[in-house]
């Protein structure tokens, strides 16, 4: 194998490993409030610590609806009438690092970082 080819293989392997590590080994900043944004505007704030008994909540937008399942410390999209269902397949989130996104409905669910 040529040295130049090896250089690119090593470079990309390191970059891929570093970014995967950054994503997977991120520190968990667990919050208790889930903020629901539609079109970049705050639509709803859900207190996850208060949800002792899981319940469902439907967010209606001009683009369609998303039914959220709220349980203690976690939130997920249980059902949505979008054609991609990416948000449904994503499952529940428990920390502030990665939001749930439903692009067709311009919806973002983000767990807020706890106040210091």
């Amino acid at each position, binding site marked *: 194998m*040529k040295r*130049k*080819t090896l250089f*690119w293989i090593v470079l*990309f392997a390191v*970059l*891929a*490993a570093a*970014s*995967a590590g*950054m*994503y997977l080994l991120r520190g968990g900043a667990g919050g208790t409030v889930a903020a629901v*944004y539609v*079109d*970049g*505007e705050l639509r709803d704030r859900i207190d996850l610590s208060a949800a002792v008994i899981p319940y469902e909540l439907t967010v209606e937008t001009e683009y369609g609806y998303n039914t959220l399942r709220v349980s203690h410390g976690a939130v997920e999209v249980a059902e949505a009438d979008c*054609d991609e269902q*990416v*948000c449904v*397949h*994503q*499952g529940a989130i428990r920390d502030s*690092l*990665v*939001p749930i*996104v439903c*692009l*067709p409905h*311009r*919806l*973002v669910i*983000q767990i807020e970082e706890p106040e210091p």
Partner: protein
Amino acid sequence: MRGTKKLVFMALLAAISLVVWVIEAQIPAPIPVPGVKLGLASVVTLTAMALLGRKEALAVLLVRIVLAGVFAGSFSAILFSLAGGLLSWLVMALTLGLFPENRLWVVSVFGAIAHNAGQLLAAMLVTKTTALIAYAPALLCAAIVTGAFTGAAAQALQKPLRGHIR
């Protein structure tokens, strides 16, 4: 290659990439990160670029994106495909001349990174939230892996196809 023969070859490439795209859309995503997929249609874009030229690859890409949007039945799908596809095309067009044929896969990796960056930016514009940047490392990692794979596939196609396009 020129004239009618080239036109037919480009139409063939557009048709192939469309079929590949439709089939790939039926396969559920293997990782729970929104937007991650193999991007098999980019094998065709890169093949077209290396064999025929940058403009020809852009034509094949645009035909595929518009027709795929019609098949998927959503306008926003076209918008996201354009954001990723055009940025990817631009980066591959700029880097194609820098690498010999046996390192075509490197061009593909750069293209894949640009594709995912373009889609992430489009998603951030659409939702008007910067929180999506949290996905950037996952998308970068996915782009390197998928880009290397599709690039290797396009690279393997060079020699067998080159004999046929005189």
